[in-house]
């Protein structure tokens, strides 16, 4: 066990720091949250810069254009970019963290050659077409059907929560190819070009007032058989690869941001008037913030432990579920403290009193999504209970979750 970085890890960090220091001041100001074409352009040109500097696909194998680095280097990358307030992964999320790793694990050499460079260079944005209105936590019950006609699948159905669909070039799509087979065994994983005829994308306004989510209606969309990843009806297994990535390091930047937010809330508490003094005079506020800080620190230790396990080639899927569950709970506690602390300063988003730091009102609302997206907390508890502790499934319930 060793918390300190090795000399090689330090070299990587120092090189990255120097590059960030030189590069970040050259970036244009970030675009408005609701200008999606501008956000796409901003996010993809950041991805291009990363690629040119050798920081795209840090853990991707070199043969696929990645850096061939270690999970620890990826963690250092996430830590340093968060610290330097570099842009987040943004629109590149699905491509770099879901679709790309899935193609590396399960794609054909042709598919890898066709798609991986575009993801790394920020040329192509991907979206995820997994969930459906009737297939949320029970994802395996999805009904979007694909019928084979010659060398194409003809796809019709209704997808939802399709992040970035309106600015995406490709969609990782789960479809039902065998309606007779048991739910998990009739699913196929397809690469759907988003300029195919028959796709209609409608934005969903989330409770934040804006949002990256969409509904996607598919009506006779023709997807070449060559775009199938893995075997027909083997898409569930292929998709599971993606989930373990999704719950692995996907929340690292967020966690580090949350740790920073605790400090911001403490500073805000010292400035917010309460009675004759400030909100910081309230021992309950201080205690609650300390508890949240301790939990987030512990989750940072847990993250580093999971990354260390990944470096040794150990399974981290369970650790990912455990992390997501605990992280959501810590964020819920932070949201409660923030709400009580802000008082009337929380009546509007956008930090109306100029307390500085994150928009804690928006963050508090966003926190709700952490218990829902990428597998609800109930699904995570099932995964931990069943795969971690070996408890039996609910009788009569089809296995699920992911």
């Amino acid at each position, binding site marked *: *066990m*060793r*918390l*300190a*970085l*090795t000399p090689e*890890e330090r070299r990587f960090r120092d090189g990255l720091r120097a590059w960030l220091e030189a590069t970040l001041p050259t970036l244009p100001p970030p675009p408005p949250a609701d200008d999606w074409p501008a956000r796409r352009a901003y996010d993809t040109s950041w991805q291009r810069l990363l690629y040119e500097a050798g920081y795209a696909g840090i853990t991707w194998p070199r043969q696929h254009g990645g850096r061939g680095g270690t999970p*620890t280097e990826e*963690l250092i990358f996430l830590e340093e970019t968060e610290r330097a307030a570099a842009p987040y992964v943004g629109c590149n999320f699905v491509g770099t963290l879901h679709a790309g790793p899935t193609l590396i694990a399960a794609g054909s050499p042709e598919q890898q050659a066709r798609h991986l460079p575009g993801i790394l260079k920020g040329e192509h944005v991907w979206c995820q077409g997994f969930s459906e209105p009737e297939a949320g936590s029970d994802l395996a019950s999805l009904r979007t059907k694909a019928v084979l006609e010659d060398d194409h699948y003809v796809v019709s159905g209704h997808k939802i929560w399709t992040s970035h669909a309106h600015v995406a070039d490709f969609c990782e799509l789960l479809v039902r190819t065998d309606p007779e087979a048991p739910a998990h065994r009739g699913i196929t994983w397809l690469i759907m070009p988003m300029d195919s005829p028959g796709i209609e994308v409608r934005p969903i306004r989330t409770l934040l007032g804006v949002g990256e989510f969409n509904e996607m209606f598919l009506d006779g969309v023709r997807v070449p058989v060559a775009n199938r990843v893995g075997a027909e009806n083997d898409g569930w297994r292929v998709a599971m690869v993606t989930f373990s990535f999704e719950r692995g390091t996907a929340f690292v930047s967020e966690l580090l941001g949350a740790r920073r937010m*605790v*400090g*911001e*809330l*403490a*500073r805000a*508490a*010292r400035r917010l008037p309460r009675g004759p003094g400030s909100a910081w005079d309230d021992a309950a506020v*201080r*205690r609650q*913030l*300390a*508890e949240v*800080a*301790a*939990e987030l*620190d*512990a*989750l*940072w*230790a*847990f993250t*580093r*432990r999971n*990354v*260390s*396990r990944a*470096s*040794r080639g150990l399974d981290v899927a369970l*650790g990912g579920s*455990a992390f997501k*569950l*605990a992280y959501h709970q810590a964020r819920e506690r932070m949201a409660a403290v923030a709400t009580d602390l802000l008082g009337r300063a929380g009546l509007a988003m956008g930090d109306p009193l100029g307390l500085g730091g994150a928009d804690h009102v928006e963050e508090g609302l966003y926190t709700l999504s952490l218990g829902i997206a990428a597998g609800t907390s*109930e699904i*995570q*508890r*099932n995964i*931990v*209970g*069943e795969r*971690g*502790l*070996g*408890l*039996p*499934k*609910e*009788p009569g319930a089809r296995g699920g979750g992911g």
Partner: protein
Amino acid sequence: MDLELSPEQEEMARALRQRLGQAFGPEARRSAAGLPGALDRGLWAALADAGTFCLRLPESEGGAGLGWVEAVVAFEELGRAAVPGPLAATFLAAGLVEGADAGRVAVGACGPLAPGQPGLVEHLEALDHLLVADPSGSLVRLDPARLSARPLPRPLDPLTPVHLVEGPLPSGEELAGPPAGETFWRQGALLCAALQVGLGAAAVEMAVGHAKSRVQFGRVIGSFQAVKHQLAEAWVALEVARSAVWAAAATLDEDGPGQDRALAGARLVASRAARVATRTCVHVHGGLGYTWELDAHLYLKRAQALDWQFWPPHAAADALEAGLGRA
């Protein structure tokens, strides 16, 4: 960066777990309650023989020359087996008090008593030395025999007997000046956190075993999400807490940045996780869990008692909050 046990550290944990499984099973745990101070001298010597108390002493002083990481790994195992006795104080006394490293003596600890206020001391009947750690001062050694104290008939943990000390503490011998008291206080808290993680892990394991075999409504209760989810919560809390304890220990070993915050956070998180895990264990066992017969209450009570040895979680929270937003 590598926040996972090395093969040697894993082997150490495995060997200690095996040894404790043989030397301190459920029978021994029950009979220890009847011993003076609940201290099994044979077990104490066996622990010393296994290198437990001298683990951090340099090899030149007859120790194993290991670090805080190995210490918390060992203490997690001691917690898992619910070994009673002044483990943390004796461990910390190695090198300071003659015979502590070899398990020839049992060393207890308490904080300074407020003037005119009675105080409680654990395991008093078994103690050869009592260390008084003043969190803002020095570390003083007392002869326990000189204390005016009476045993309390109903201690929270039957394996942690307590005496009520009446009157002021007698004067003793200063072992080390400030900040030795505070250091002792905080290091003891880290060891308590490790004990709590072990107690919690044993409790979850026990509860999972029960949930897999107990049948109600025609199915094992662990298949009900209402039960399964509680166990999952407890397990996750412990995994997170264990990571915090390891990270704090590694930070101390490496003399890294943020030692105080890491230690305070570990103390706080381990205390909360052990509480959830041990209470869940009682609950999942239902009526059986509420009885004296089952070990579930021993895990719960020990975990609760450990909150009030050395630097308590609330004080750790106070220390942590003072630094928030200042960095």
